[in-house]
């Protein structure tokens, strides 16, 4: 999504909405979380959620605008967004794109296709060989 943001930030606004943790240590922790040193308990208050969100921003120098869902999970409920989901809201405040439920139907390429249909495709050079450094990707596996 960061690449899509960089390609289309002159045409569209982007907002990351941080929701309840998908794989906290005290619920369903995945092996990949341990391997990547992403080990956090499910926040019990807003301050804990804010702290984890800030850790993410700092680790990956995440550039996209950020909003954190309050501990009552109102935004997550309104958008059925857990564990991850993509939406596009058009200029008139209506839903223009509603992504599938993550993780299996979370598809940034669909967002790219929507933006490309409006503003034109942005081509890139073939990617360089994978480096050891992790790439920022909220929600989806790094």
């Amino acid at each position, binding site marked *: 999504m960061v690449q899509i943001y960089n390609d289309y930030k002159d045409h569209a606004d982007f907002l990351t909405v941080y929701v309840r943790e998908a794989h*906290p240590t005290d619920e369903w922790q995945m092996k990949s979380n341990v391997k990547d040193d992403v080990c956090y308990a499910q926040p019990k208050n807003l301050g804990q959620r804010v702290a984890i969100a800030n850790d993410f921003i700092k680790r990956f120098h995440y550039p996209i605008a950020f*909003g*954190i869902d309050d501990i009552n999970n109102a935004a997550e409920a309104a958008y059925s967004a857990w564990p*991850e989901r993509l939406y596009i809201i058009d200029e008139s405040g209506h*839903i223009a794109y509603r992504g599938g439920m993550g993780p299996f139907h979370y598809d940034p390429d669909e967002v790219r296709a929507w933006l490309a249909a409006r503003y034109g495709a942005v081509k890139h050079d073939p990617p360089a060989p994978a480096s050891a450094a992790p790439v920022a990707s909220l929600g989806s596996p790094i």
Partner: protein
Amino acid sequence: MTHIWKWTIAVFVVLLLAAFLVLCKMAGSPKDVYGMVRYAFPHMHRGTLKVGDDAPDARLVALDGSDRFHIRERTGGRPLVMIFGSYT
């Protein structure tokens, strides 16, 4: 009659085992199946929003932990791409 019950139970057990194996394949391991059923399924909802619906509003908190803003404040003028997710 007992014969029918035995077959019914046997079919039920086979179906349950098949479902468990499918979930293991999806989740990765029996431990992950438990995690998925116990913690993920209760929170996963398809939802009822459709393209064309009014985008719901909600109040969000800024990274400083104190400032607040509404999603609606970020709409209008240009499309808004919303990325929902978490670090883990």
